[in-house]
């Protein structure tokens, strides 16, 4: 069955637009256009972000593995980004910093701009300037950026585990994190004023 369309197809932009709109709609429905909610993970009063993304991850993982099992999708045809260890760590840190300073991540800033939030529009502007600066100076840090690549590696391959066993453990970790964060959220909300 899958993939449903060829990446080189001219329709791919249209499909990307439709998927993008659906993604934005779901972000907005989950309340992710509010920077208070997003920053909540950092301050410990609201873990909806973590819960939504973790749920999305396990739903997609279970779904994809079932699809593969029934032969509906060819997992090897799915593009997986390469893992560059150094840039992933540095990039993750920078992204987290930007997230907590600005109150949005790239996707949610677009989402919040769409519903007219001025802070999100400024964030989006900064984001675009950042992209341009990154592009201009790319040759400077390309060696670091491309260094220590582990290829499109799978975590269960690195750990030498069966992927289904890994998925089961991952689901258990996700559920434990939901319980844990719900507990923290309650404790913090009791102590601090809710914004």
């Amino acid at each position, binding site marked *: 069955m899958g993939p449903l369309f*060829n990446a*080189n197809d001219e329709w791919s932009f249209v499909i990307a637009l439709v998927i993008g709109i659906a993604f934005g709609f779901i972000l907005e429905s989950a309340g992710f256009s509010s920077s208070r909610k997003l920053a909540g993970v950092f301050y410990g009063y609201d873990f909806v972000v973590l819960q939504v993304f973790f749920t999305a991850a396990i739903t997609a993982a*279970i779904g994809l593995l079932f699809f593969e*099992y029934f*032969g509906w999708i*060819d997992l*090897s045809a799915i593009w997986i980004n390469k893992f560059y260890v150094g840039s992933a760590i540095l990039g993750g840190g920078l992204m987290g910093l930007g997230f907590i300073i600005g109150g949005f991540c790239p996707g949610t800033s677009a989402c919040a701009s769409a519903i007219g939030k001025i802070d999100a529009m400024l964030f989006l502007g900064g984001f675009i300037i950042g992209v341009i600066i990154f592009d201009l100076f790319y040759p400077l840090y390309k060696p670091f950026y491309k260094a220590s690549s*582990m290829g499109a*590696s799978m975590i269960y391959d690195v750990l030498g585990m*069966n992927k289904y066993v890994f998925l089961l453990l991952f689901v258990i970790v996700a559920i434990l994190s939901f319980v844990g964060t719900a507990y923290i959220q309650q404790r913090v909300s009791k102590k601090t004023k809710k914004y």
Partner: protein
Amino acid sequence: MSDIRIIKKRYIFMASVFIGLALLLVLLPERHTLKELKAERLLQEVNDNTRYFTTDDVAEKIIANDAYMQLIDVRTPEDYKNFHLKGAINIPIDSILNKDEDGNYTYEGILNQDLKANVFYSNGTIYSNQVWLLLRRLKYKNNYVMEGGLNKWIETIIKPTKPSATASQKELDRYDFRRAASMYFGGASVTVSAEEDVPAPTPVIKKSASKEEEGGC
């Protein structure tokens, strides 16, 4: 306890659905899906040209010492010895699917990995495309073909032709790059032995008018 009350019934239900489904995947008997790439998918990939590296790309990467490209010469060892591109290794087409004593493909470590882009070349593109096709059927990734092979390499990089005076700036820039690359690669001193893509010219037997035709109708 209030801590426990926050975990509502429906969350418990959802959590058990997730765990149940994941457990089911673990317990289901292993299913052997087709190890090879499906024919339709292969056809689709054959028809799109994303597997090609142009000779300019290859030249640029050789000059830049790009560690993420591995050139693989799929011609015979003799041809390889006579001439090969800088940094290329030789895996002749007839030994590409060689297996070791354990029955594993000898070159799998090189031909199926995520780190480097393998670029195959032969004199034309027939052999390199055949290698690409064989490996793609095995679902090997990260393999590419140098468009036009060594014939095109000579034509574009070693002996570039000057574009006409009315050519676009892009073409002129490309010509400048090619001329510089030509100097880098030592100019027009290379010759390629066999031309696989171009069928060997069949000798034209000229009939001499003076001779009588023997036999025939």
